[in-house]
């Protein structure tokens, strides 16, 4: 369904601008840089899940030779708990308490102090010399424990319905009359599901290198999903004005949402300021697992009612999501996305943000949506079998289309959900025979996608090539897609376009790499910047030819005289115009800064085949097809890559990934050996079908593609397992011990 044709570069699998650096080891990630005089920072972390900090004595640590600075919560700007200060979607009251425990340590691994010393070993030793007097408190890890009447309360100031509570927030989405809707239903299915917190699992641990001059001029070198976020959060937490902080985005070794907040930068900045030396901090994998991310664990109840002909008349969802130790779970994604693939007249969707003594959650690919979709799409599967309908038919019958008013508010413009269902139905995978102990499941998913602030600068070099600077860290090939867009508009070879990610001092404000917004937003600002450049180029040619600029057209990388002057002058190429720039008005370049609008939500439909090893309890995914409404695939290789990567993460979430807590309230598996993410031999090839229904609100038709592919996966796998065994798992992960227990219970 390739609707935009005749493109030279858009839709091509070009080589990414940063590619050679990344296959030769030259690319500089956060931990790859050093500075003269650099020293090392380390963090002392709480061993307790919940403890009041009565006092901290750092004198012995400071006395250790080689130690240059120590910081505690006292050095960090306090944001009192009674006044919210928002930075994007983050509340600085919680950020300030997340980077360093203030009144209480709230989870094992919560930072309590940080040390900078001449070597990592001395810094680690100094951490051991810090004496913290804790008053250990009772704790709660799981949702049910945190919601008990006599549960230990994490934050005395947090009230729900007038009483101190571990419920930190509630969000409700309503459409129609839910009671009436269920009255009309002839078949109703209601089920309760649980999912476990899972980590984003980026392979690059958090790292930064920071120097602060005596006048507070600060240089931050770190990897994150947003250098402007790093600058702002560091400024808020250290008191150094944003104009004094230059945040340089290193190459980032994966984020998936987990690097949309800071952990180290404020601490390293304060250590660098105190010591007068550049400070480098690198987390260990264990620190990453104990103290960063993950996404929420959850408990959801979903009820869907339909007529006998399959028309869904009512749907209700209640989603409890773990926030970790500080408020802020992604209930918006669970509440808002779960029912959006369907046109349902009566919907009630409610989410609760639940505190407990685990590390504070961070965004993870379509935050909240996969949790909700797991419950809804499993119920859809049960509903289809209760109605004796094909599960894709049931979805088609109720699918959201152009004009559908989604439960979360908006009326959909032209969307491609139906097309994903039809493509899935028509795919040979859907009709392929299955063997013994094999099963097939399908599921759909939706994610909002985001627009927001972006800046770009497009400059023509003196030799007639192009440098594009944007403000979004590139995690998955966005530079390649931007080169395609700019080269297409200019009509030049894509290799003439260099695409760079600017630091906070060299490019205008750009919001995070997150919400699947990067290509949507940056293609928009790059398009407008390039169009301005083309206008300048036409004006220059007009001046040289002494004709009206309107009579000059830009084609194939050159200015051509248009009618009535067509053929009168030889075309002027980009290189020729660039060479003449000094005489003809000066440098050629343009920048655009926008609050981009028109990001439309995306839909996916997945087909999964599994085979169950009933001896070992292992579920293997043996075939997988992901179909997605991708808008326009500017660089198909990286769109497919997003889809395949999302599916792989979902398979991990469905089958293996979970934190194991011990009786002391600590994570027992804080490493890659026991926190089992999918490895190469666990997975099959992941087939992709890109349905291209261009976003009408974007110059290239771009729609975010990065997050949708995680949303349907867990349900697709669970539905397949159900099909294979006739047994449904309501709780993730469907790991070997659980599968064996379920098979044994059956006898």
């Amino acid at each position, binding site marked *: 369904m390739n609707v935009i044709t005749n493109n030279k570069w858009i839709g091509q699998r070009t080589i990414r601008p940063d590619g*050679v650096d990344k296959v*030769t080891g030259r690319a500089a990630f956060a931990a790859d840089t050093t500075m003269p005089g650099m020293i090392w920072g380390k963090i002392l972390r709480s061993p307790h899940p919940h403890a009041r900090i009565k006092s901290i004595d750092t004198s012995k640590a400071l006395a250790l030779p080689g130690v240059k600075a120590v910081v505690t919560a006292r050095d960090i700007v306090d944001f009192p708990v009674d006044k919210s200060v928002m930075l994007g979607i983050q509340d600085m009251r919680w950020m300030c308490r997340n980077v360093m425990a203030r009144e209480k340590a709230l989870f094992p691994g919560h930072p309590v102090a940080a040390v900078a010393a001449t070597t990592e070993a001395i810094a680690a030793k100094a951490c051991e010399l810090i004496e913290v007097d804790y008053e250990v408190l009772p704790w709660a890890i799981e949702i049910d424990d945190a919601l008990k009447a006599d549960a230990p309360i994490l934050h005395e100031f947090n009230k729900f319905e007038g009483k101190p509570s571990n419920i930190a927030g509630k969000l409700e989405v309503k459409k129609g009359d839910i009671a009436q809707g269920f009255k009309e239903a002839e078949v109703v299915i209601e089920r309760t599901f649980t999912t476990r917190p899972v980590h*984003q*699992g980026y392979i690059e641990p958090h790292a930064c290198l920071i120097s602060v001059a005596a006048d507070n001029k600060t240089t931050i070198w770190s990897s994150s999903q947003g250098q402007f976020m790093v600058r702002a959060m560091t400024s808020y937490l250290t008191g150094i004005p944003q104009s004094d902080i230059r945040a340089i985005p290193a190459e980032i070794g994966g984020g*998936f949402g987990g690097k949309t907040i800071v952990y180290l930068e404020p601490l390293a900045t304060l250590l660098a300021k105190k010591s007068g030396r550049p400070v480098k901090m690198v987390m260990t994998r264990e620190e990453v697992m104990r103290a960063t991310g993950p996404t929420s664990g959850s408990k959801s109840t979903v009820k869907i009612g339909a007529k006998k002909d399959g028309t869904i008349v009512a749907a209700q969802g209640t989603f409890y999501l773990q926030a970790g130790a500080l408020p802020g779970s992604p209930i918006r994604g669970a509440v808002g996305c779960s029912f959006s693939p369907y046109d349902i007249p009566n919907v009630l969707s409610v989410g609760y943000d639940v505190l407990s003594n685990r590390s504070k959650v961070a965004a993870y690919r379509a935050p909240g949506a996969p949790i909700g979709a797991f419950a809804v799409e499993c119920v859809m599967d049960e509903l289809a079998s209760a109605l004796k309908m094909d599960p894709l038919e049931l979805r088609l019958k109720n699918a959201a289309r152009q004009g559908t008013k989604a439960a979360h508010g908006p009326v959909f413009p032209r969307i491609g959900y139906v097309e994903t269902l039809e493509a899935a139905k028509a795919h040979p995978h859907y009709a392929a025979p299955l063997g013994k102990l094999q099963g097939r499941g399908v599921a759909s998913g939706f994610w909002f996608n985001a627009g927001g602030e972006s800046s770009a600068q497009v400059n023509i070099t003196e030799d007639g090539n192009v440098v594009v600077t944007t403000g979004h860290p590139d*995690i998955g090939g966005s530079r390649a897609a931007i080169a395609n867009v700019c080269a297409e508009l200019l009509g030049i070879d894509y290799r003439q376009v260099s695409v760079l990610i600017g630091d906070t001092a060299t490019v205008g404000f750009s919001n995070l790499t997150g919400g699947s917004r990067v290509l949507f937003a940056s293609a928009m600002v790059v398009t407008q910047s390039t169009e301005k450049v083309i206008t300048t180029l036409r004006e220059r040619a007009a001046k040289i030819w002494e004709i009206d600029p309107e009579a000059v057209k830009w084609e194939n990388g050159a200015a051509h005289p248009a009618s009535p002057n067509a053929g009168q002058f030889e075309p002027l190429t980009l290189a020729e115009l660039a060479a003449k720039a000094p005489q003809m008005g000066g440098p050629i370049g343009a920048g655009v800064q926008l609050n981009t609008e028109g990001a439309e939500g995306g839909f996916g439909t997945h087909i999964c085949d599994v085979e169950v090893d009933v001896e070992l309890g292992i579920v293997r995914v043996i075939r997988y097809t992901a179909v997605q409404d991708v808008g326009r695939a500017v660089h198909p290789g990286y769109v497919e*890559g997003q889809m395949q990567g999302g599916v792989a993460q979902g398979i991990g979430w469905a089958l293996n990934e979970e934190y194991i807590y011990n009786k002391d309230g600590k994570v027992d598996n804080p490493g*890659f050996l026991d926190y089992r993410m999918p490895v190469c031999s666990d997975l099959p090839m992941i087939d992709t079908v890109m349905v291209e229904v261009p976003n009408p609100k974007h110059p290239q038709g771009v729609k975010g593609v990065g997050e949708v592919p995680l949303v349907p996966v867990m349900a697709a796998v669970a539905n397949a397992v159900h099909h294979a065994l006739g047994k449904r798992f309501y709780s993730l992960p469907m790991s070997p011990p659980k599968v064996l227990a379920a098979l044994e219970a059956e006898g």
Partner: protein
Amino acid sequence: MAKLHVSTTINGEPMEFLCEPNDTMLDALRGPLGLTGSKEGCASGDCGACSILLDDRLVCSCLMLSAEAQGHEIRTIEGMADGEKLHPLQQKFLEMAALQCGICTSGMLVASDALLKKNPQPSEEEVRFWLAGNLCRCTGYDKIVRAVLETAQDMREARN
């Protein structure tokens, strides 16, 4: 404690460095040797981002003491291309978009190179099991496996 002096060969060049007795080879590469192409994802032998060749044997450099490099030959990602000419695996990874963030890429390439040296005609299954020690969280492995299989075929054809 005095540092240890190590003489070794890295990417064909004789090299010397000083290290602590408990430094890993990865520490030495990324520290005194300045070869930061090998990455540290776990320091426990579970992610493969630090993969190097020790006398043509694939090892996790985070599990090897740097002093053990004495008298041996080490190859890292920095030695994979022949000057300006990329190794066929490097070229194929680029053409097939077999990397997203790129943090696993050095290790993937070093490991794949070791595989093709041993087994120029691997099956998909052999590639998958060989690379099972190299975690990638971005790609779902699909394009990586395809790139290795295609490179193997290209290299076989080039030899024939």
